[in-house]
């Protein structure tokens, strides 16, 4: 029995990571319908915020607060300058955000060099669970991801901002008649998505190599989580993360990791064949 505990916790870790990186994607791509290929770089920006904060003498916890703010401001500026020009045109959004992604990668690499950055994560030790030692940081990550998920769902279901956003997506004209400014709501929604991605970047940083290209690893997977979960539903993200994360962990115990990732992708394509709208459509 105890052999299954690390296995179970490993899949929970991956599910939490996917949940974190996909939440912003669920807002920007799932709800707002903007194909954002620079989403990976938002994650990278979060991780590099941690690098900068630690270099100037701060710690992980400070970065956890600073990174979403940086991501939010960055997202807000980007939406105002570029993204708002491509609403409703998927091809333009795709090409523009891909261009943005290439530029961001190179600029980050020019500033910080191509070498992986060293960072100090919190909780170096392990915690014993049912007699099995497990890294404390991963347990923290699992709890934190769950908390972020619950808060995000609550914001979207219960607050005025969430209501306004859902209204202006469903019918921008009707929403503006009711006194909601869709342009403003869109800007804040995009910025929140970027903030969530940056937050994910900080949380991911202690577990992976922090390089300018780190975000790319999560780009395709977070798209798939949203597509499989069902674009337009925030709770679908949880379903998508559990399916993709669970499967990938399960498979990587049986076959090499790269093959497991490929197998999961193939499975996702097969699922899209039979449920084009995802497993929990909005």
């Amino acid at each position: 029995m105890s052999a299954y505990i690390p296995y179970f916790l490993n899949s929970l870790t991956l599910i939490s990571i996917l949940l974190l990186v996909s939440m912003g994607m669920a807002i920007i791509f799932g709800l707002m319908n903007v194909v954002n290929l620079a989403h990976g770089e938002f994650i990278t920006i979060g991780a590099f915020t941690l690098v900068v904060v630690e270099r100037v003498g701060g710690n992980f916890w400070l970065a956890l607060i600073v990174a979403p703010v940086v991501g939010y401001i960055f997202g807000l500026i980007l939406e105002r300058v570029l993204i708002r020009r491509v609403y409703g045109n998927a091809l333009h959004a795709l090409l523009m955000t891909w261009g943005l992604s290439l530029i961001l990668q190179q600029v980050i690499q020019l500033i910080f060099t191509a070498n992986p950055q060293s960072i100090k994560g919190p909780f170096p030790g392990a915690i014993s669970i049912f007699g099995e030692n497990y890294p404390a940081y991963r347990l923290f990550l699992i709890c934190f991801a769950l908390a972020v998920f619950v808060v995000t769902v609550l914001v979207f279901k219960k607050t005025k901002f969430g209501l306004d956003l859902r209204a202006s997506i469903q019918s921008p004209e009707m929403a503006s008649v009711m006194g909601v400014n869709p342009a403003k709501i869109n800007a804040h929604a995009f910025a929140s998505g970027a903030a969530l991605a940056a937050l994910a970047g900080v949380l991911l940083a202690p577990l992976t190599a922090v390089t300018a290209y780190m975000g790319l690893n999560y780009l395709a997977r977070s798209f798939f989580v949203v597509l499989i979960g069902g674009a337009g539903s925030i709770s679908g993200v949880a379903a998508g993360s559990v399916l993709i994360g669970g499967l990938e962990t399960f498979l990587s115990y049986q076959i090499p990791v790269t093959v497991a990732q490929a197998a999961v992708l193939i499975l996702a394509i097969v699922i899209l064949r039979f449920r084009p709208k995802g497993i929990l459509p909005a």
Partner: protein
Amino acid sequence: MTQLSSLLAANKTASGLRFRPATLIAILLILIMSVVPLFSNAYDLTNYRDVLLFGLFALSLDIFWGRTGILSFGHATFFGLGAYGMAVSSIHFGIDPSYVSIVGLLVGIGLAAVVAALVGYFILYGGVRGDHFTIVTLALTIVANHIAIGWSKVTGGDSGLIGIPPFSIFGFSFYDPMASYYLALIVLAICLFSAIWILNGRLGLILSAIRDDEVKAKTLGYDTKLILLITFVVSAMLASLAGALYVTNTGFVAPDMIALLLSTEVIIWVAVGGSGTLVGAVIGTAIVWWLQQKISSISVTAWPIAIGSFFIMLVLFFPRGPGAFVLEKVKAFQKSREGNK
């Protein structure tokens, strides 16, 4: 029905007029390229030969993206499958050198066809179109790249494989730059003229109809999913042909031949030439290749930044320039007019 046939007839004359210059340009281009070796040294010739094969790669994307309006971010996967298919079968299998190139070519093209058919079947038949299709193909390239790096026993991992013999057929080896240049040119010419000929005909019209309104095309009795799938597979096979020939020239294969950057570079080549024009894809490749030589000689990192800026400028400043964007704007305009009615 009569309405449709008149529509198709009208379309046909219009497209006949529209494509005649393109065909002329294609003939002119191939003629110019066939006398180029008379005026260039062996080193330049090997570069031009690579441009011709990249042009073939761009042509393969244009056949799918330009005609169906569905953008594939996965074409480097097929180029790479051709490249790795050729490399792995000529290095690992110990095949008789006299026909190893043919086997490699068949393995590479076969692999690409099978992958394209499987992926295409599941997503095209699942009704995945537009941006979702692009995302799935993007993921395909990422996975293919991971496998090329991770499966080092077969693919050589990060460093790739070296020692691929020059292309040879019936004992004749194209190791000489001049010979391999003409091989690339002949293959490109055959593919280009066949593509122009086929896509100017009935199939081209059906693809345009699908791009404009798939449901309508389906209602008229066309198996739109099958037509899209076949176009996708053929396009993938051409990409892998370009990849397989390319590695017989370079002699090595590396993971950056199956990477996302290549997938996006080929989009730029097609966009610069004007997507949907076929011959434009080849010309665009040559222009961008020339620019890349200039920019990369300043700084290596400058090139990805230049591509990125180009993507953004393409959308912001000259969306009306290249062909696909014109069509898109026309469609958007028609839609807004319909909306106002």
